[in-house]
Structures are given as C-alpha cells and as structure tokens.
C-alpha cells in the first residue's frame, strides 16, 4: 500500500511538472489570465459599476457573490457537522468541579487583567476590519476570524466556561444561522423586488440611493452576514473540539 501511494505521488508530481512547462512566465502581464477580458473588466470597471474602491471585495461579494454565499455555507456546515458528530450529552458531574475552577480563575491576576484589556480592543479592531472591507484589505471573513479569536482568547486564558457564559454554544449556532440568513436574505429581497438573486442594484428603491451605491451597500450587508457566521462558527468549533463535545472543562 505504501509503495502504491509513493507511485501515485510520483506520477502526480511528474504530471504537475510536465504541465508547468507550458505556464506563462511568473508575473507576466501578458499572461492569458491578466489579458483576458474578465480581469480587464474587473480592473477597469469595478469602481464604475459598484462604487467600491477595493476590487477584491467587489469581486468577492458582488461579481462572484454567489460563490461567497456558499463559502459561508461551507463554514456554517462545518460548525453544524462538528456538533452533529462530537456533541455528546452534557456531563452533569463536571458541574461540581466548577467551584474550584472559579478560584483558579481569580488567582491569575496578570493574565486576567491583560485579557480584560485586550479582548475589547481585538473586538473593536474586528469590527473595523469588517466595516472597512470596501476600502482596504479586510471584510467579513477576516473580521469574523478576528472576532472569533477574541472569544477563543477568553476561553484559553480563563476557562471555556467563561467564554460560554458570554456566548453559549446554542447562541453561537443561532448567530451563525443568522449570518447566513442575512447574506441569503439580502439576496432574497433582491429576488422579491423583481431582480435576480443577489442583484443588489435592485435595492436602490428600498435604500433611496442610486443603483450603483446600492451595490456597495449590498456588499456591506453581506460582509456583515459573513462576519456573524465566521466569528460564531470559529468559537463553536473551538468549544466543541477543546472539550470533546462536552462543553465542560476545556483546555
């Protein structure tokens, strides 16, 4: 079996090398991918068509917004899947140990105070990243991960329970669902108003702006949805994995 695997790897590697012979030169401005009308269109027309200065955000959330919707769904699915597989019945005996844990939590002064200072700043920064996706690198995925990270920091530096007291697992999954709902809901509103699914320009009547600005607002809306899902699923996955699905103890 091992030799079979090695042979498969060698053949695949050889094929990849063989294919690379035909590649355009690295960073070549005349390569097909940068010459073809798709990328030309994105580079020249993005601001004109969506009023978003950050091209990447416009492609991600508008031109190929349907892809991103399902990328968000993939993350959501991962969270649901981990709960479906790992989540066992809550162990009642562990609750007794909580009293001693509380003592431990208070004893570590430096850790506690540092985190107390850090967590709100991290979360503020996360919100900034989400909101500023239009103009600079950032957006829902990045901001969501940062926000989720702040909750995980709470769980690591205190106890898992400390973080769960603020966002319980049930709430996390609910928020993740809300995130997907925000994204797809915006798409659905477009459909109900008579446009195609995810055609944000149709929202201009609702938002009282011109169709191109409506696209920009639509992008912000879906980024917020993505952030909800990513942040809460990050935390839900951590909580389940670190406590083997029991939601008690943790790392």
């Amino acid at each position, binding site marked *: 079996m091992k030799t079979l695997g090695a042979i498969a790897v060698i053949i695949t590697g050889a094929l990849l090398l063989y294919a690379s012979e035909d590649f*355009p030169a690295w960073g070549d401005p005349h390569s097909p991918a940068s010459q073809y009308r798709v990328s030309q269109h994105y580079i020249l027309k993005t601001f004109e068509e969506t009023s978003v200065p950050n091209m990447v955000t416009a492609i991600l959330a508008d031109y190929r917004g*349907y892809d991103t919707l399902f990328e968000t769904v993939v993350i959501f699915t991962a969270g*649901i899947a981990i709960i479906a597989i790992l989540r066992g019945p809550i162990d009642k005996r562990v609750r007794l140990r909580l009293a001693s844990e509380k003592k431990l939590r208070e004893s570590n002064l430096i850790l506690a105070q540092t985190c107390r200072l850090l967590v709100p700043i991290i979360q503020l920064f996360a919100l900034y990243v989400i909101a500023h996706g239009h103009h600079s690198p950032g957006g829902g995925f990045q901001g969501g991960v940062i926000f989720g990270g702040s909750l995980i920091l709470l769980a690591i530096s205190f106890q898992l329970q400390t973080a769960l007291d603020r966002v319980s697992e049930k709430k996390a999954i609910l928020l993740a669902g809300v995130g997907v709902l925000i994204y797809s809901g915006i798409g659905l509103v477009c*459909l109900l108003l008579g446009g195609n699914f995810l055609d944000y320009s149709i929202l201009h009547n609702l938002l009282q702006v011109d169709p191109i600005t409506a696209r920009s607002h639509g992008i912000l809306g879906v980024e917020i949805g993505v952030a909800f899902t990513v942040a809460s699923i990050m935390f839900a996955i951590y909580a389940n994995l670190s406590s083997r699905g029991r939601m008690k103890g943790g790392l």
Partner: protein
Amino acid sequence: MVDQYPAIILLAPFFAAIAVSLFGSWKNGLCLPMAIIALGISLAASIALLGQVAAEGEIVYLLGGWSRPFGIEFRIDPLNAMLLVVVTTVALLTAVYSTQAAVLETPNKYPQFYTLFLLLVTGLLGMSLTGDAFNLYVLVEVASLTSYALIAMHSKRAVLASFNYIIMGTIGASFYLLGVGYLYIKTGSLNMVDIREILQETGLYGSKTIMVAFMLIMVGVWIKMAFFPLHGWLPNAYSYAPSSTSCILAPLMTKVTVYVMIRMMLTVFGPEYVFQYLGWSNVVVWMAVLAIVAGSIMALAQTDLKKMFSYIIVAEVGYMVGGVWLANETAFIGAFYHVISDAFMTLCLFLAAGAIITKTGKRSISEMEGLFRKMPWTMVGFVIAALSMIGIPPTCGFFSKWYLINGAIEAGHWGYVVALLFSSLINAILFFKVFEVAYFSKPSHGQEKDENQPESAGTDGVGEPPATMLAPLLITASGLLLIGIFNQDIVILIRQAVSSFGFIGFLN
C-alpha cells in the same frame, strides 16, 4: 416568477436548512414538515423548469445580474433539467422515509440531521445548476462536507468509514480544483462555455497544461464517483451510514458526479477535444469494462445486503462512464438514461434494505428467511428494483442497457458488450440468491408459533414497516416501471441536448 424557477429550486431547500437550524432545536417537530414542504416546492419548480426547457431550449439565469463571463450563471439544458427533477424527487421520497428512520438512528441530533440533509440537497442541486467551473467546486464542497457528517452521525464504524471518505473525497476535490486552476492560467476564464470558446478560438488544444488540467479534473471526479479502482471509500461509507443517509447519498452522489463528468467533457473541453484530439476513449472504456467486471465480482462475494448493493453501484458507475466515453449518440443516450434510472433503482434498493434492516435488525443475506411472508409489500418493491437491475422489460434497467449495448455495438466495442451482459448475469445470480433465502427458507425458530397462527404475518413480531417507509418504496418501484414505459420521452429530451453538443461518432 417564471424566470425565477432556477433560483427557487435551489433556494427552497437552502432557506429550509437555515430555518431548521434556527428553529429546529426549539421545536423538533418542525424540522420534518419544513423539509418536506421545501422539497415539494423545489420539485414543483424543477418540473415546471423541465417543461420550460423542453419547450424553449437552454435557459440561462444570471446571478447578481452580471452577464457572462463576469458573473456566475446557471445554465439549464434538458440534461440538467432532468437531473434536477431526479434529485428533488429522490430527496423528497427520502425525507418522507426519514420520518421514522431519523428518530431511530439519530436521536437528539434531529435538527442537525435535517439541516445537513437539506444542505446536501442544496449542494447537489447547485452542482447540477451551475455553469461556472469554480462555482461547481464550491458546491461540491457543500455536498461533500454534509455527506461526511451525515455518514459519521451513526455509529463508530461509520465514523471510520466517513474518515476514509473524507481523505479520498478531499483528494478528489483538490484534483478538481487544481485542474480548474490550470484552466484559468491558460484561459483566464471560469465560465464553462467561455472556456470552451477560448480553447477553440486560441488554439490551445496542443497545450500541455490543458491536457494535464483535463486529466486532473477527470481523476478528481472519478474519485468522487467511485470509479474502479478509485472506489475504496464507497462500500463502507454507504453501508455503515444511517439508512436515510444512504438512501439519499447512494442514488444521488455518484449520479450527480457522473453528470459533472459529462459537463466537464462536453461543455468545458468539448467533444472535439476530448474524443478527437486526445483520443483516449478506448483506454477509458476498457477501464470501465474493468470496473463493471470487478464491481460485479466483488458484489458476489458480499454477505451483507447493503454492502452488496454498494458494490453494485461500483459496477453501475462503470456502465455510465463507459457509455459516455463510447463517444456516440446512442451510447450517450444510454449512459444518461442510466443516470436517471439508476438513481431510482439504487434508491429503491436502499429503501428496501433500510426497511428490512430497521424491522428485522438483520443485515446479512443469509438471515433474510421468510421475508416474503413477513413483509410482502416491501419485497414487491425489492423485486421490482432487482428486476430492473438485472434488466428485464418493462423496467427502466432494460432500456438503459438496450441503448448502452446498441451504442457499444455501433462503436464496435465488444469488450463493453460482454461486460454489460456478464454484469447483468451476475446481478441475476445475486438477486435470486436473496430471493431464494427470503422466499423458500423458513425461519427455523418461528416454526411452532406459525402453526398456532397460520395466517399471522409476523412470526417474531416482524411485519410490514410503517407507511412512511413503505410508501416511498412503492412509489419508487412504480417509478421504475413508469420511467421504463415512458422511455421514449426521456430519450427525446436527451437527444435534444446531445444535438447541441455536436456529437458525432468519433470512435469509428
């Protein structure tokens, strides 16, 4: 409204999945009705869409209102319009079937089960709808991730089987993604039709990168559809999964992937490139012959009912891959007709197996004694599915084999003809072995009770399964007969699609 059908088909199960995840844990009883209503809407929309496509030809739906090639589009021709009806029908029947099965097999995980189930259906529908090569990958991811979780929810053995499936499935998906990446390097586009036009216009047929991209994509989808010898993950994953999961995965996952292969070959690369320029048809058809023979022989060696069915699927995948690669119209019609009929045949078999296993608790073929007496209606469904698998008219299995064999004769590929007949023969042996045990052998321990109550159906409390299990089974079984009887209409639709690909006999 009318031009929104493609979106409605996809969005109904999708929004139901979100609703189940939001409200399911609050009221468990809401999950199933929401799933059934959503799938009903989806089925109605896909039937309406099929009528529309049959009347008007290809339909394009632009997501976000961006035109090709800047945005993502759905492209619906008769092939995927039919596939959509198949997917939604199978999903709806399985959802009805899961009424009892899900309670028994995944207690406490009720909302998660239905969320994943509906997302799986969404993924499969999205795979069938899309006209964008990268978007296809995203939806493959959704469908795969949900199926890994659904399989692993059952037992310890299922977890291991699912882990194997994750490794193999991820390798397959990565190969596919790498192939799409290579295509993008050379063409600069992700839209399926657009890629084919660029390949034709800029004379990229000779490019090594394009050839490797084609190989990577093919190997990727072959892993996903369990084409022999890449089938290793399938038997355990499908046989240890909870019964409602295997009822939806076994019929749909492989068939939708076969459709993806067809789409990639004919729409993205184009028949000219695949059959004429590369000219690998002969090699792949021989691989398919190998798959058919090996799958059948391995099925013969099984003692577990569901495992036997799983190996039959491996053989059936060989039928379809071979049929497509025979590269003529008749064989292609046979292959796609088989995609449709095999989805229902497999569904019927797995529904019957699910009913038998839930009622008797036995999985082994040798323990099926006296089933014809205990659960006569279940066995009626089972027999029809078996006859269709063997290929006896007027079931649909006969007609797909008829077209496949004719196509193979047209192409002059006798190895494939022999393999098909051989596999039908093995199927006959397999199923009559089950019939023999179930009809003639008497349960050894129930003998005495039987004399006391001669007319009683169940000797050890085993009778017909509940109506929610029996009804889908019987509907599917009658569906097998209907698909067979109305084969002409389906063939006309397939022919309509084939003419747009410009299929000519390439092998001759």
